[in-house]
């Protein structure tokens, strides 16, 4: 479990130190719980503590809390302007003109966390072109954004 999470964090040039004892796998979902919750939570819980993501066929699909945890560390990030922030949350890819700041490597194929101007993590994506060399056009492919909460509401 920790390996999948560390591998995922490394996509952003980051690393997380999680206590294996406090990570719990429920079917394909992974949770991080604290000592108090570990003592109190029923063993057959549906959800507990901090949801980190789910693993399907060996691939980690991260939670937003996990992305936020990575964002708090040193990680590859882009920061968006207000208009682009909303477009990203609506599931759209990011145009170069909407990126106000880049932190860390910005080469094609790299993964980046996507933040707003309050340093809040909105999701993540994959860089489509070398950001330093590009002036305009599509720059980052949206992989996951917090608009997912709205999409889930529609499903439930």
């Amino acid at each position, binding site marked *: 479990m920790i390996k999948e999470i560390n591998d995922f964090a490394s996509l952003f040039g980051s690393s997380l130190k999680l206590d294996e004892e406090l990570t719990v796998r429920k079917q394909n979902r992974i949770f991080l719980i604290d000592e108090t*919750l570990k003592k109190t939570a029923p063993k057959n819980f549906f*959800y507990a503590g901090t949801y980190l993501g789910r693993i399907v066929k060996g691939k980690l699909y991260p939670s937003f*809390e996990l992305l936020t945890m990575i964002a708090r560390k040193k990680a590859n990030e882009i920061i968006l302007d207000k208009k682009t922030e909303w477009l990203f*949350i609506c599931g759209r890819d990011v145009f170069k003109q909407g990126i106000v700041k880049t932190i860390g490597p910005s080469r094609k194929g790299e993964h980046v966390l996507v933040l707003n101007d309050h340093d809040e993590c909105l999701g993540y994506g994959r860089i489509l072109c070398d950001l330093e060399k590009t002036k305009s056009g599509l720059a980052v492919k949206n992989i996951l954004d*917090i608009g997912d909460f709205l999409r889930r*509401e529609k499903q439930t």
Partner: protein
Amino acid sequence: MSGKAFFIDRYRKLGWEHSTTRLKQAIRINSANAKPEKTLERLRNLGLKLEKTPFLENGYWVEEAKFSVGATSEYLLGLYSIQEAAAQIPATLFTDVKSKSVLDACSAPGGKTTQLADLMHNTGVIVALDIDRRRLTATANHLERCHVKNTALCELDAREASRLNANFNRILLDVPCSGNPAADKGWFNRRTIKDVQRNARLQKEILAATVKTLDDNGEIVYSTCSLEPEENELNIDWAIRNLNLRVEKIDCYGQEGLTNVFGKTLDASLSNCRRIWPGQTQGFFVCRLKKGEPT
């Protein structure tokens, strides 16, 4: 025994003249995730006009919004939640919740669970129960959106709470109820007195089962969004006589609970409960209970 005239006549006998109300949308600022004043500033910058709800610390009525308040970055980042004003009251009635163990016995869809976690600043532990898998999923989404970290969500009927093998300092019983016409336009056409009686029985069963998991010095907050005395004062009167519970004084919005219902005199301490007739908010009933005789 159903229909609008039947229920309106009951309300009149209980001291309330029915009138149609238009509920204002309300939000609650999640203070654990950001400074409330910062969140308010961001919302005002978006063009949202808010009015402070006078009886709530972090509650605001939405006076004007040119967009859905459930579709902003701030909402999706868990900086606030959409929660009707009266529904924000129950979780605030515990004397203190930080670092406590809390049972939220009927938690879905999770508005009060996230509020409790916010009041606890993610300290202590909440065990939140519900029996509906689909609603548990919705609650889990709320927990994730609001960055809740101290909660375990379990698929369990509140009447089987003793299976948790745990005792709690605080128990929130926001029990399943018949609802009220202010929050449900089709209410009068749907509800009958049999529904009310069935819900009242279920609520008693939940009270009886969960009180067994309460610490000796623990507190229960009981709430419904029903106006029917069978689900409120009559149930609490029953709990005083049968479960060795007492009603504590609370300082909150609403009128005193009824001590006489359709000619039946109830325990005088029922006046410590709060009955909220629809008006500024939807209908609600709340009270705080402790074990044993008054001190």
